[in-house]
């Protein structure tokens, strides 16, 4: 019995950051997975509508936003590496860079939303736009939440609250940000590329 408990504890400890954030991450991934499946099955009954509507999307923005999020994820990895080396300021700088890129993502996405609304596109325009706007706005809110978390972690890094030995907060915030990136990678392929 005790052996099983120890095994479970080892499995939990080997994840970077708090176990609680990983339970949250897996729950979020399941929700997004269901939404992706719903999009794919809805498309199977309305292929022409989805293909025609997809052509109106700003694919360049989708592409740029993917590069932006991937780069911000890389910056978070560098922040983790910096704090493991005991470099608080460097950790803060890398996290600030990731935050700046997150801001760039939001800016481009807002520009896309603005263009949609200027052209009279909304949730009730058709089934594709209902999914497109819902999925991307839901993800948008996750980016905002991820940025709030990263901002808190960056502040704590700047003020020396972490060390090479104690930096669970950096790993926890970073894991959430990588999840936001992972979801966008699938979303980009599904909504912007595959047709």
């Amino acid at each position, binding site marked *: 019995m005790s052996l099983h408990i120890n095994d479970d504890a080892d499995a939990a400890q080997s994840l970077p950051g708090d176990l609680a954030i990983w339970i949250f991450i897996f729950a979020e991934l399941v929700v997004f997975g269901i939404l992706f499946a719903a999009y794919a099955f809805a498309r199977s009954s309305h292929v022409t509508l989805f293909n025609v509507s997809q052509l109106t999307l700003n694919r360049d923005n989708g592409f740029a936003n993917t*590069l932006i999020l991937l*780069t911000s994820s*890389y910056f978070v990895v560098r922040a983790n590496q910096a704090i493991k080396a005991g470099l608080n300021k460097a950790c803060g700088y890398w996290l600030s860079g990731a935050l700046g890129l997150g801001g760039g993502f939001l800016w481009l996405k807002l520009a896309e939303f603005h263009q949609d609304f200027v052209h009279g596109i909304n949730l009730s325009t058709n089934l594709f736009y209902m999914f497109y706007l819902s999925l991307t706005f839901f993800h948008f809110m996750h980016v905002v939440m991820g940025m709030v978390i990263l901002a808190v972690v960056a502040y704590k890094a700047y003020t020396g609250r972490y060390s090479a030995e104690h930096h669970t907060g950096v790993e926890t915030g970073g894991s959430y940000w990588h999840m936001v990136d992972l979801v966008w990678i699938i979303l980009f392929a599904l909504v912007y*590329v*595959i047709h």
Partner: protein
Amino acid sequence: MELSRTAPQDKGRRHSAGVIRRATLTWLILLGLTTLSFRLGATVSGNVLMFTVLGLTLIKGHLVTSEFMGLRHAHWVWRLVMALYLLTVGSIIAFAYLRA
């Protein structure tokens, strides 16, 4: 004495530099795979595009979870859960697109 004090630090720095090199390479591969997916989307269509881009997306997902999220060093159960998630989502999407 001097040597024994600096040797672990040097080892730590070398390890850190190796980790950064690996992360940088992963980032560049991710940018490359994204560019490839984007270009394919403009030139290819149908099931060929769907399977190719889904495959590239699963590779990208694996790289992010394994290298960036650090699951490479985690217990195998966590790696399996994440791999199953990616494969399940990819399979459901492929199935839905094939029945269209």
